[in-house]
């Protein structure tokens, strides 16, 4: 019943606007996201993808340097030690951390897991993501420390 009412009203209104003047269309301003804190957080989360891509690029350049021989690779490692590289990495790390945390917190939105008759609570899904993150980070630290 509700849908029928809405449809008839909608049609009546377009007939109305055809006869009685134009519609007034508002545009979304380019800085729409500055008006609300949750939207600022959203835009920040989206922008952090640039830093994730930055890390991927550094890794690709590192692999390229590795293929180009020991000398190029040593130069690359020297560049990594420069203050500008360390600063970039430190800033990038903060943004990537923000990226990871916000995405892990959103994971329950996309993953709805049913176990028998019960739905796994969202907090548990987010927690399992964090646990996997810790395990992988621990594994990498162990490899770096003992290799």
């Amino acid at each position, binding site marked *: 019943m509700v849908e029928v009412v809405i449809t008839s009203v909608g049609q009546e209104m377009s007939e109305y606007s055809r006869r009685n*003047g134009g*519609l007034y269309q508002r545009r*979304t301003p380019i800085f729409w996201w500055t*008006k609300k804190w*949750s939207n600022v957080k959203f835009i920040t989360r989206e922008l952090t993808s640039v830093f994730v891509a930055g890390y991927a690029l550094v890794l690709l350049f590192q692999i390229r340097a590795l293929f180009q021989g020991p000398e190029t690779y040593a130069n690359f490692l020297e560049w990594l030690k420069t203050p500008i590289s360390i600063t970039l990495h430190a800033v990038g790390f903060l943004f990537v951390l923000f990226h990871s945390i916000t995405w892990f917190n959103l994971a329950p*939105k*996309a993953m709805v897991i049913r176990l028998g008759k019960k739905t796994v609570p969202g907090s548990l899904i987010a927690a399992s993501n964090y646990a996997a993150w810790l395990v992988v980070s621990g594994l990498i630290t162990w490899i770096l420390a003992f290799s």
Partner: protein
Amino acid sequence: MAESITLEIFRYLSESETKPAFQTYEVPFRRDWVILDALNYIKDNLDGTLSFRWSCRMGVCGSCGMMVDGTPVLTCATFMEKFLPGPIRVEPLVNFPAVRDLVIEMDDFMGKLSRVKPWIIRDEEKPLSQGEYIQTPAQLHDYKQYSMCINCMLCYAACPIVGLEPGFVGPAAIALAQRYNLDNRDQGKKERMEVLSQDDGIYECTLVGECSVVCPKSVDPAGAIQRYKATTAMEWWKSLLLPWGKK
């Protein structure tokens, strides 16, 4: 306790003006009044030319959605007390063209809604003699949340993507598509996927999440869209790794 409160109302007199303006009204403040009560007070006592939609006054019909101080709400379910000492700014839902005052044009939304085929699709209807389609409480639970949508369009007003990319199918329509996709009686997943995997479908969504924040029925359209994305990604991997598998 305040005796009166000011409302700044978006007026667009489409029959005589080309631009809208805000008009101020002073209404009595009562603790048990919602914004819609104040609008009806204005219409009945102060200015009969004010146009707005409403019907049920109990958060079921979805007609009275408006922007109140910049947030899309059902005006029948939003108390004035929350906005003391005022003034309270009331505007038509954004991301929709205004027809007159607080009334919006919703044809575009109705078109998007019907595109996702929000009804049960069967390959072949079984004859009546075979009885009804059986559904267990657990199967009902799978989609019930998404079936609570009342088409109030608050999620469209909250979604910046709808504002920036007017073609985007939008939160409510996708949540309703999921409502039928997750219904065990339905066989129309593939047809809906063809619509929703287009450029203006689920992948327009960047998960701002505001649609779920404003939803008065806790439908969680943002969740519905992300679940749909996860399902389509799984289907894609399946078709890549198991091309001989069942489509």
